[in-house]
């Protein structure tokens, strides 16, 4: 069995070589590789975390957006309602003003009509009085003779005191 003999020296040499090689590989390749893997895993985990965080923030933003949209809708409704109320108020005010002006005009017209009526009434009254006096004068002129005139003159004189 000369070909199958174990050469202890070679075996030990091989073992030592292997150990040295193992030690060198471990020191120079395995550890940096592990570190690299670790770093990469950490980065991936960090990325995943950030992604989850971003997802959360996105959700928050969506909620915020929805909230803002809801608020905007409410504000729009409120503004619209306010505008409608304002328009209604202005319309009512305009109608009220128009009504007041109409009433004032009517009152003025009524007053003017009354004034005209009063003036006509006054003129008629004046004319009636004038006619009555003209008639009275005419009647007196016709009915008073010299004798009567003398009596009246004496009567006036008796009432006068200097």
């Amino acid at each position, binding site marked *: 069995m000369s070909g199958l003999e174990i050469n202890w020296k070679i075996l030990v040499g091989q073992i030592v070589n292997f150990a040295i090689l193992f030690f060198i590989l471990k020191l120079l390749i395995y550890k940096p590789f592990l570190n690299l893997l670790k770093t990469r895993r950490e980065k991936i985990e960090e990325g995943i975390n950030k992604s989850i965080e971003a997802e959360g923030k996105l959700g928050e933003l969506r909620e915020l957006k929805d909230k803002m949209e809801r608020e905007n809708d409410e504000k729009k409704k409120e503004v619209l309602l306010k505008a409608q109320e304002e328009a209604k108020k202005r319309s009512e005010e305009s109608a009220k003003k128009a009504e007041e002006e109409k009433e004032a005009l009517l009152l003025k017209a009524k007053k003017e009509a009354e004034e005209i009526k009063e003036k006509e009434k006054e003129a008629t009254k*004046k004319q009636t009085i004038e006619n009555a006096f003209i008639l009275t004068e005419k009647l007196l002129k016709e009915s*008073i003779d*010299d004798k009567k005139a003398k009596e009246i003159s004496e009567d006036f004189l008796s009432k006068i005191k*200097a």
Partner: protein
Amino acid sequence: MKTEKEISYWSRALYLSLEKNPDNYEAIFTNLKNSLGKKITYLPAIIKKAEMIYNKEKKAKLYLSHKFDNAEIIKKIKEEFKGIDKIEDEIDEDLLAGFRLKTKDILIKASLKDTLIKLKNKIYGYN
């Protein structure tokens, strides 16, 4: 002194003297002539002016509505209004009845026309 003014003063003096002593008119005129001296030419103007003053002071105008015997009325007026010597009468048919007496100072409205005017003014509310 201006002539006109001088005549006016002399005529006023003559009027007052004659009013005070109407019986002594001869003496008054003699005194006046003596006082005037060379200005005797003013005498007609002085007498005329004195007459005007007399007419203004002593004359009154009586307006009547009808022509009737007014002697009684004139007498009563003279009794009532002292200082009126002469009354001129005139017809004014518009008075209707009664009279108006106009003196230097006053106007007396005592006619039916004036009564009617007064009544009309009262109706119109002018008084």
